[in-house]
């Protein structure tokens, strides 16, 4: 039986110095995350795509409720999202360029609230480790309720020519049974 631990997308260089809140680099990161949230909320996905590196890995592991006193049965880590640049392009194409993505046509209203941003330098030059929390209310049709997802993003950004590019995103969801019937939105 295989037991492939993919808690983190791959073996990334450990992080080193904290990037202090309020420093110019920290502010640049915050600005980037806010801008990214706006691009996703307005479905400006082609612009968003420009902020990935070509070796991007983007994934959301399935969460399992277990007990402190017990170990989980050994098996591979299941994912809700398990993406690379190619598959992100397929996803973006479907929702952005076609009119038959019924999970988002008519599109849902979303609001990505990004908070608790912490950032570190890493042992790889120009690579930054950024952790943030998110809360995403999603509303579709005339529902008077939101489907809500909260969680944590574990990001790796590369500074390329002064710009931040997303190279890794590991999404830790706070639900084992998702409140949404699908993940046709990006997190």
């Amino acid at each position, binding site marked *: 039986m295989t037991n492939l631990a993919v808690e983190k997308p791959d073996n990334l260089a450990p992080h080193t110095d904290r990037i202090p809140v309020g420093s110019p680099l920290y502010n640049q990161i915050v600005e980037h995350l806010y801008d990214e949230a706006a691009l996703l909320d307005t479905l400006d996905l082609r612009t968003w795509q420009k902020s990935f590196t070509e070796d991007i890995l983007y994934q959301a592991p399935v969460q399992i409720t277990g007990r402190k006193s017990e170990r989980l049965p050994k098996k591979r880590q299941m994912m809700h999202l398990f993406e690379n640049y190619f598959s992100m392009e397929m996803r973006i194409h479907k929702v952005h360029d076609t009119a038959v993505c019924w999970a988002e046509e008519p599109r849902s209203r979303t609001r990505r609230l990004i908070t608790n941003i912490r950032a570190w330098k890493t042992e790889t030059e120009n690579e930054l480790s950024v952790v943030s929390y998110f809360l995403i209310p999603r509303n579709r049709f005339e529902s008077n309720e939101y489907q809500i997802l909260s969680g944590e993003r574990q990001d790796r950004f590369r500074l390329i020519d002064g710009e931040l590019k997303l190279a890794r995103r590991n999404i830790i969801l706070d639900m084992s049974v998702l409140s949404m*019937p699908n993940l046709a939105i990006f997190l």
Partner: protein
Amino acid sequence: MDIATKSIRSLPNGKTLDDLIMRETREVSLAVMNDEELYQWELENLFGMGWNLLGHESEIPDANDYVVRPMGEDLVIVARDRQGQIHVSLNVCPHRGMRVALGEEGNAPAHKCIYHGWAFRPNGDFIGAPVEKEQMHGGLCSKAELGLKKARIELYGGLIFATWNHDGPSFEEYLGDAKFYFDMLWKRTDNGLEVLGAPQKVSIDCNWKCSGEQSGGDGFHTLSLHRWLIEAGLFRSDGDDPTDLAPAMYGINVSANGHNARCIPIEGTFDIAKKMDASKMSLEDRLYKLAPPGIHKELVPQLQKHLSQEQIELLVKSPPQVGGIFPNLNFLFVYAPQPDGEVLGAMAIHIIVPKGPHRSEFWTWMFTEKDTPEETKEKMLRNAVQQVGTSGLIEQDDTDTWPHISLASRGYKGRKDMTLKYQAILGESKPEGWPGGGKVFAGFSKDDTQWEWWEAYYAAMNKTYD
């Protein structure tokens, strides 16, 4: 079942099964998606006394491993004991009703209820209550009577099925003629399948039958709801217009006891296979180049060992690609043979779990052959996650359709006058030399097998248990 059979049960509002399922005109009242009494009756007849998929043995590989799984709205513990045997027992404490195993998964030699500490073995047997000398389980019931309620279990190709109906038909009888086709999917190699991880789970505001009747096979919705498959060029199209009807609509649909399989020529479904020009290939050639998902070349000889010549022929020409096991299991085998000979693709099984007349959970397991090479497994997981399940590009469009049907069934006019219609009839026709049994419908995929799902529903619901 004979159409002359009449309903022996009625709801408190006086409606009988015949008022809800109109077999002469092949219609189903939309009220079936809304009725609370009917729902309770389903929990008993279908999810209580019928066979339910709970998972796969590879999810609990070691002694004392367990997962907690739904049988209707009942939760059960599916556990492996020290001898390797798998047991299914109700996750409800016989003392005062507390949930016993609290995790979704875990490993425990004994399940101890946190409320007052009664403890149970992985096979459900009662071990004892704390303060043994005071006999805190009382003197009226013996220890043998105080175990967790045990279900009847069947392992089929490693898939774990269970029922509370200890005297009913065996699982094999239940599968009937569908077994011939399903064996080609789940019982074709020495070591069988393994899960690629825990199931994905999402919550949907719909009656479970919105998805359940889909497990009866609905080829027709592919053209509209899954239009993206055609627009993206993944599905083969023959005309100049890429949105022409996909040839994948033509094939052989098979139905038995409400279970079904859609056997479709591979090269008629996926563009990638069409480009290989399969018509010129020998049987042997096809086995290697158009192999089922996860069947790496080393595994091909095993196919020949486990399957009959007839099954092999079907597997390389018109394999079952989509289908279901009545009432709530749906499977999908996506072929993605690669030009370099690597065999990718996706194998997925869904169940829809009832959580009230208007709420359900949709679960997705993804599979590989146990003996598929490691690198291929990882690629198959990516492939599967990208196409099916929670975020799957193919399946993401299904789940948000169903709540609209559930909502429509709540309206006065909707539930009173509206019906689901299954009136596009292809009719039974067996191609020359067709090797398998069941009702066989060859041609353009119509409503036949889905209607058979409702016939099976009628038959299973038209019974009383005490």
